[in-house]
Every structure is written in C-alpha cells, then in structure tokens.
C-alpha cells in the first residue's frame, strides 16, 4: 500500500503546485512597492497601511463579521435541531419534504437562492440590510450544519442516550448531559463552516442586501471588477493568513488529541 511510485509523487506535486502557486503569487505581490501588480518593484508594506485607513473596507469587514456571527449562530441552533429530527425523529408528517428542504439548498445555484429570497423580502415588505442578509445566510448555512451534525449523530451509539434515560434522566436532560457534550465537536465545526460560508458569500448577499449594508465580498467584487489592485492583494493575504492559521491550529489540536487518546488506550490495555 505504501509504495511510493513516481507517478503518485509527480501527480501530487503538480496538483498541489496548481492549488498553491496562485495564492503564493498573490501574497508575494501584496508586499510589492509598485501599484502595478505584475511588476516587482521592491518590498513594502504600504498597501497594508492604506488598507487600515480605508473606511469603506473597514466598515464592510465589520458588517461581514456581524452577519457571520449572527447567521452562523442561528444556523447552528436550527441545523442541530434539524439533524436531530432527521436522524432520531422517526416518522412524521412532511418528513420527505423536510429532508428535501435540508438537502436542496446544498446544491441550489446561489443566483436562484438569492433571487428567490430577495423576491420574498420585497413581497413581505422587509427593509433590506443586515437583517435580511442574516436571514438568508442562516437559511442555507443551517443545511450545511445539519449535514455535518447528522453525519456525527448517525454514528452516535444510541445506547448512550438509553443509558442516560435508564439512570433517571428526562429526554431533555439526556440531550443536554450526554448527547450534546459528545457531539459538540461536530456542532462546533458546523458553526465554523457556517461562519466561513457567510464570510465568503457574494451572490446571495448581493441579492439580499440594501444600500445600508455592504459586506466585504461585495466591496471586493466591485473593486476587482475594475482590475487587479495591490490593496486587494493585501486584504486577501490577511484573510488567507487568518484561515491558514485557523485550519493549521485546528488540525494540530485534533492530531494532538488523537495521539494522546491512542497512547492512553494503549496504556489502558497494558495495565
């Protein structure tokens, strides 16, 4: 199995080069002195400085974070409930419709989701702004959360809940004291996924926003349409750095935990 063939090494090297070179170039040129993004003219951090004084970008970033925090929290609560209903709810009226509505948004083109939500908000006379983006983002994020959480719930040993009931818990206590702590990692990654999706989203936010609320992706998009600019490179670099830091930290923590758990299990067998 572990034979390292030349073919595998070459395909992986080329593949990862393809995935990473564009981002590396982008990062390098965020430190470029020149306004021309394709010609290197010396090292400088001036674009980061300019970014810090760009009110429009800072405002947009603030709006985006607000939207992401609210929508991912709502999505996590609703999505976890939905996952529990799908995995444990048994049969109820409208179950097929319910699971269809959970899975459909995952594959729905964003333009359609955005358009339909906008038409709804106009139809019920809701002023478009932060609130409407939060509603829109919560809706599609909850479906992602629900998929993440339900894949954990499927492998969850049901006798743990039964043991809790057997030892005197009510159904709600069993969920709070046993189920929730055990599925917590899945719920947290669901929240993180929802948060990132909301940070990233351009299309749905463009449809559902109003003049009062401009998110960072909308701001970046309108700037980028005019062409490449070093300021956007700087902004992208910051965002890539945050994500990279987050992903690496998370994977180191999981790896550390797994190694520790494995070691402890081996010690338990030996004792």
């Amino acid at each position, binding site marked *: 199995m572990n034979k390292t063939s030349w073919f595998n090494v070459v395909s992986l090297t080329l593949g990862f080069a393809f995935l990473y070179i564009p981002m590396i170039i982008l990062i390098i040129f965020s430190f470029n002195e020149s306004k021309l993004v394709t010609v290197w003219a010396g090292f400088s951090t001036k674009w980061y400085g300019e970014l810090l004084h760009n009110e429009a970008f800072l405002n947009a970033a603030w709006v985006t974070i607000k939207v992401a925090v609210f929508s991912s929290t709502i999505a996590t609560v609703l999505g976890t409930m939905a996952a529990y209903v799908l995995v444990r709810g048994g049969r109820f009226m409208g179950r097929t419709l319910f699971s269809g509505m959970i899975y459909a948004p995952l594959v729905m083109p964003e333009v359609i989701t955005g358009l339909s939500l906008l038409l709804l908000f106009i139809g019920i006379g809701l002023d478009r702004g932060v609130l409407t983006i939060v509603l829109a983002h919560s809706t599609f994020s909850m479906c992602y959360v629900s998929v993440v959480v339900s894949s954990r719930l499927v492998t969850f040993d049901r006798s743990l809940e039964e043991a809790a009931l057997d*030892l005197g*818990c009510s159904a709600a206590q069993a969920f709070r004291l046993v189920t929730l702590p055990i599925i917590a990692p899945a719920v947290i990654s669901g929240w993180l996924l929802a948060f990132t999706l909301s940070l990233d989203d351009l299309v749905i936010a463009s449809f559902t926003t109003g003049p009062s609320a401009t998110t960072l992706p909308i701001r970046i998009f309108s700037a980028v349409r005019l062409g490449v600019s070093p300021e956007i490179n700087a902004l992208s670099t910051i965002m890539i750095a945050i994500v990279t830091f987050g992903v690496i930290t998370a994977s180191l923590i999981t790896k550390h935990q797994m190694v520790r758990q494995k070691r*402890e299990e081996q010690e338990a067998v030996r004792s």
Partner: protein
Amino acid sequence: MTTVEFEPWDDPQEKPLIHFQNVTKKFGEFTAIDNLTIDIYEREFYALLGPSGCGKTTLMRMLAGFETPTTGKILLAGQDIAPVPPNKRATNMMFQSYALFPHLSIWENIAFGLKREGMAKPDINNRVDEMLRLTRLEQFARRKPHQISGGQRQRVALARSLAKAPKLLLLDEPLGALDKKLRQETQFELMDIQEKTGTTFVIVTHDQEEAMTVASRVAVMDHGKIIQVATPDRIYETPNSVYVADFIGDVNIIEGTTSAAGEDSYSIDWADGLAPLKATSSVSFSDGQKCHLAIRPEKVAISTDKPEGAANTVQGRVLDIAYLGNISTYHVELPSGEVIKAQAANTRRISRRSYTWEDTVWLSWTATAGVLLAS
C-alpha cells in the same frame, strides 16, 4: 456448601418480583414476543438464552422501559409498569456496549444516576466509593473510559448500573466484548457481586456456557416463545424438547417408535436389523408413537470388547476423533449409517489408547442415560 436450597419458584407462597402475563410484542408484521408468561423471583439470577433474533433482547428492553408490550401486562412487585417511563423505573440496565459516557470520568459515570436522583453530595461520595470498592476500581476513579481496559470498562458499567440499588438489574450480553479467559473470570465475579448485593439479575446471552455458569434458572427462548425454564442441571439433564437438548451442549438424537416394556419403561425400534433400545421415561408414550431419544455423548461408553450387562449396546466403526486434551469425542458410524458420538476422558497417554480410526468398537449406555422426547 451449607446454604439452604434457593428455589423460590417451587414455593407456592412466594410472590414473583416480575410477572409477564400473556405478553406479545409486534414490530409491524414481525412478532418478537409471542404470548409469553413467565415469573422471576427476588434475588434470582435469571438467564434468557437463545439464538439472535429469538426475542430475548426485546424482552429485556420491555423490562427497562425502552419498548412497550403490544398486548399483555408486565408486573413489577405487583404493579403494572407499562405506563412508567424508563427514567422512573426501579430497574437499571447494563448495556452490551457498556454505554459509558466518554466525556465523564469513571467516578462521574458511576455518580451519574445518583445525581439525577437528587441525592445529597456526601451520600453520593459514599455510594460511589462503595461501588468502586465492590468492583475493585478505586485507583481508576479519575480516569476517562478510554483510559481503562475492556475488563475494567465492564466493571464500571456494572458499578454504574448497581449504584442506584435497583430492584432489578438487566444485563444485555454483559461479557460479550471480553475474551474467553477474562469472560470466565468475570462470570464468577458477577455471581459474587449478585450474592453480595442481593439484587435480582436478569441476563441476556447467546452463550449457553455462560448462562449455565451464572444463572439460578435458565429460560431457553426461540421465535419469541419460552421453550423451557429450569435450573441449569435440569435444562441439561432433562430437556423438554429436541430444540433445548440440541441447543444446550452436544447431544445424540436417535429417532424411533416406542412400545411399552413395563412401568415407565419403553423399547424403541430405531433401525432395521438392530435390537430395540431400552429407555425409561416418566412421560408416557403410546405404542407405535414417534419419538426422539436424546443421549449426551459423555453418557455413552466406548470399548473394544462387548460390555457385559449394559442395557443398550451397538457396534460401529470409528469415523473421526476430536481430541480436546482432557477428553476426546469419538464419532462412530453404525452399520445402519447413523453416527453416534461418544466421549471418553483421556486418562492415558495418547500412545497407549486402545482404539483409533477405522477400529471396530462397542458403544453402550444405560436405560436411564437418555431422555425420551416426543417429536
């Protein structure tokens, strides 16, 4: 042993702790439990034994409250427990997977049920310590379930389910995840703990040896019905049906037809050209009735010369020998084509054995060795 015989099921004065009355449980079209009536007495160690899918687990889950009977009643100490939810029942269960809460320490696992009861802190501490002592887990109290071995986890699960001092403890294949040697040790430990705490135990198992070892009575189940309930020795010595005889241990089943030969004594025609077999039975059989004679292999003697004075003797050829160390099982083919198994203790060294493959040998057994069963 100087203990008084423990046989509450033979005492008409004794009230059962649990009474199943005509209980039927259906899952859609499938009948898991079929019109079943049993009694389980206080302080009993009651084993439900049967192949997978025979309904034994369903029976246990109805006691725990995770399933409700479709028809019929379950009484616990005279009270119908159907409307009582699992968390309000005076029963506790030890799960097959142990179901230890992975995020809680051993101590917290054992204290879990006590906390739900609203027991005072010092009382909880005392009770948990008592349970840890009982199951010899004192030094593991602060560990998490993944930090202890399989045998220790099994004891935590037992301690946790015993902590609330239930009237009835349900054990679902409690030793299934342990290897054979550990399982045998743990069986005695279970019996010991059951005796110390005086709790009524109901155990579900598919391992007949385990049921025979631990239980005061064994209930053999098949297709949602109880086939026989009796003490382990009676199940083994006097099975009430071919199914039970065949399910428990090794057995020779000989088909034939009976004819009376004196009081409680019958002769059985079983093969053309061979002398009829003699057997006694307290159950009466009519002449010409089809029957099965069940004989345990260890009750069949094997010899090179025809034994004198044996009630039943047949001659045959050694077809196969299964050497098991302390004993050997000989598969002997009779001229009629039937194969009868005989067991003999290996008291001599293997080189000194007097018969081997293809040898002609005599098999013999007494009239009381077998059990006569109607078809």
